[in-house]
């Protein structure tokens, strides 16, 4: 066997200038282009579907729904596309989780699982640049793709929002609009990379990411989002149409009496009627008002949609940055 001579090294290499960041771009692209192509195909298929059904919806709305609420509108627009729109918006809730889990979780888990981290982390570029140079462009790419998709969904949702069928605060669409969809996708990606680093195996890391994301998204929708800004309170029985009602309750003599939904209201009404209230023709609200009870409603006005979007986008961005920073720290300090 003949062997080639390794050419002599230059005598003075100088101090080790770091390997430029842009070199990581090729590496990240080459190693993750399949995942990015998968995201593009997945979102692209969804987008084509939204585009086609959205066009039909827009046409139907334009043709039959002026004035809104007409019989023609009910038959040809709401009746025909309402269910589809609901199913689409529910299905889209899962998209950030799927994108994040399938692009984020394997990035580090695959390296750890297959042992290639021993190769990657001993190259001249160093672990810090390697990790940041991989995670940040990928995070930007999936976030941008999700952001572009939001624009399409906003267009798709427009006939419903315009006619007041869906309020912007509806939990079904709030996180598909504005900056929230992109922010949730970024958060899912960040959860994914950290889970991959901690669990070190791609498939369990994907499962853990989906579970963690679902928990976070449900907790946000159920408990957190309504408290972003202190709600407004009104005595009017009908808060503005675009508002999101949080809760209602009664007071008497300036003191809290009972909530709209609870045992207190039933027992009070029974006491006031002196029985099961069969005789009275008054509505519940009128009956209680006659006896000195005042009804209050707390709500978030529709005008707060964008502040809410920025708050949600902001904390999700901060959370994602924190998770990615934690991942980078772990990569730098993990011992083989």
């Amino acid at each position, binding site marked *: *066997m*003949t*062997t*080639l*001579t*390794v*050419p*002599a*090294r230059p005598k003075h*290499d100088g*101090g*080790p*200038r*770091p*390997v430029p960041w842009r*070199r*990581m771009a*090729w*590496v990240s692209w*080459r*190693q993750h282009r399949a995942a990015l192509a998968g995201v593009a195909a997945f979102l692209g298929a969804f987008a084509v579907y939204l585009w086609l059904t959205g066009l039909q919806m827009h046409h139907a709305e334009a043709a039959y729904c002026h004035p809104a609420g007409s019989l023609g509108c009910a038959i040809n627009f709401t009746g025909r596309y309402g269910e589809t729109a609901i199913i689409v918006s529910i299905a889209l809730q899962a998209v950030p989780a799927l994108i994040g889990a399938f692009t984020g979780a394997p990035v580090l888990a695959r390296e750890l699982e*297959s*042992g*290639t981290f*021993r*190769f*990657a*982390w*001993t*190259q*001249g*570029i*160093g*672990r810090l640049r*390697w990790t940041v140079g991989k995670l940040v462009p990928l995070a930007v790419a999936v976030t941008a793709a999700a952001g572009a998709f939001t624009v399409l969904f906003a267009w798709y949702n427009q006939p419903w929002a315009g006619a007041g069928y869906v309020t912007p605060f509806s939990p079904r669409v709030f996180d598909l609009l504005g900056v929230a969809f992109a922010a949730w996708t970024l958060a899912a990606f960040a959860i994914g990379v950290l889970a991959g680093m901690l669990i070190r195996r791609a498939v369990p890391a994907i499962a853990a990411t989906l579970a963690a994301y679902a928990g976070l998204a449900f907790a946000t929708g159920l408990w957190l989002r309504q408290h972003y800004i202190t709600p407004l309170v009104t005595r009017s029985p009908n808060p503005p149409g675009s508002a999101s009602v949080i809760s209602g309750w009664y007071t008497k003599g300036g003191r809290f009496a009972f909530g709209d939904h609870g045992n207190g209201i039933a027992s009070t009404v029974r006491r006031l009627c002196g029985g099961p209230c069969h005789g009275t023709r008054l509505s519940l609200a009128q009956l209680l008002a006659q006896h000195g009870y005042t009804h209050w409603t707390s709500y978030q006005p529709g005008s707060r949609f964008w502040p809410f979007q920025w708050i949600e986008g902001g904390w999700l961005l901060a959370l994602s940055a924190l998770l990615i920073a934690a991942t980078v720290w772990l990569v730098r*300090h993990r*011992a*083989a």
Partner: protein
Amino acid sequence: MNIIETSGLAKRYGSSWALRECTLAIPAGHVAALVGPNGAGKTTLLNLAVGLAEPSAGGVTVLGGLPPGSPAALDGIAFVAQDTPLYKNLSAADMLHLTRNLNRRFDQRYAAARLGELGIPLKRKAGKLSGGQQAQLALTVALARRPRLLVLDEPVAMLDPVARHDFMGTVLAAAADDGVSVLLSSHVLAELERVADYLILLSRGRVQVAGEVEDLLASHRTLTGPAAEAGLFAGRPVVHVRRGEVQAHLLVRATADDPVPPGFQAHPVDLEELVMAYLREPGAAALPGPGRGRALPLEDGEPSEVTR
């Protein structure tokens, strides 16, 4: 310059010590072999040297005083881990391109020419290459970085004899032509003598033998003589005794000039014999520096190993 220098180096995983009180200095310009039984701490020591692990106690520096994992150390050391991990879904050409992008220096021409010479198709995915070709690809990628130190963890354990021979040929050529220092771990003793000119023997997390192969061979002899008289050597620096019915073979620390006891014949040792003797006597040690070497006191009637 020492390519690696450790003092009191220790590494603990959980409650078990993978490496303890490891103090050694390997000078540059050698092909140094790190040998020892499984679990002796070879991989741990290499991981510490390339910056993949951090010491639990003690210190380690590489390339004349650099902390492992520092930019300068990463720049100067190429590491081929056990089972030669490669990105299996990348082609050989992409592996080269990838490594080129991850380092300041990369000799693309050398790498491409070397793969051509080995008959490794550039378009083929790394995962589709044979075990020997994968190992050669990993080695080529490492050498094309033009490192000052090449660290190989069990590089030939999975290879057949021909692939093993070719692989070591590449390593030796790089060491001879470019002056790359090499540190390789192996439990395959057969090829060591051809390859290594420096030996470190690790046992149970401690350094047992360290030194240039030439010096080690010159300072050890096998003495063969009547088994009944093996007891004469009590107090002598005997490393290991292999006692048969009639004859005993003693591996002792002695040079060619040392007197041979009556009735005994002295033979030079080869590296494999020497390593085997120390592996079988974990209590014996041969370390550089005055008074560091110690051999087992030979106790009569307690043969270390009896061959029948």
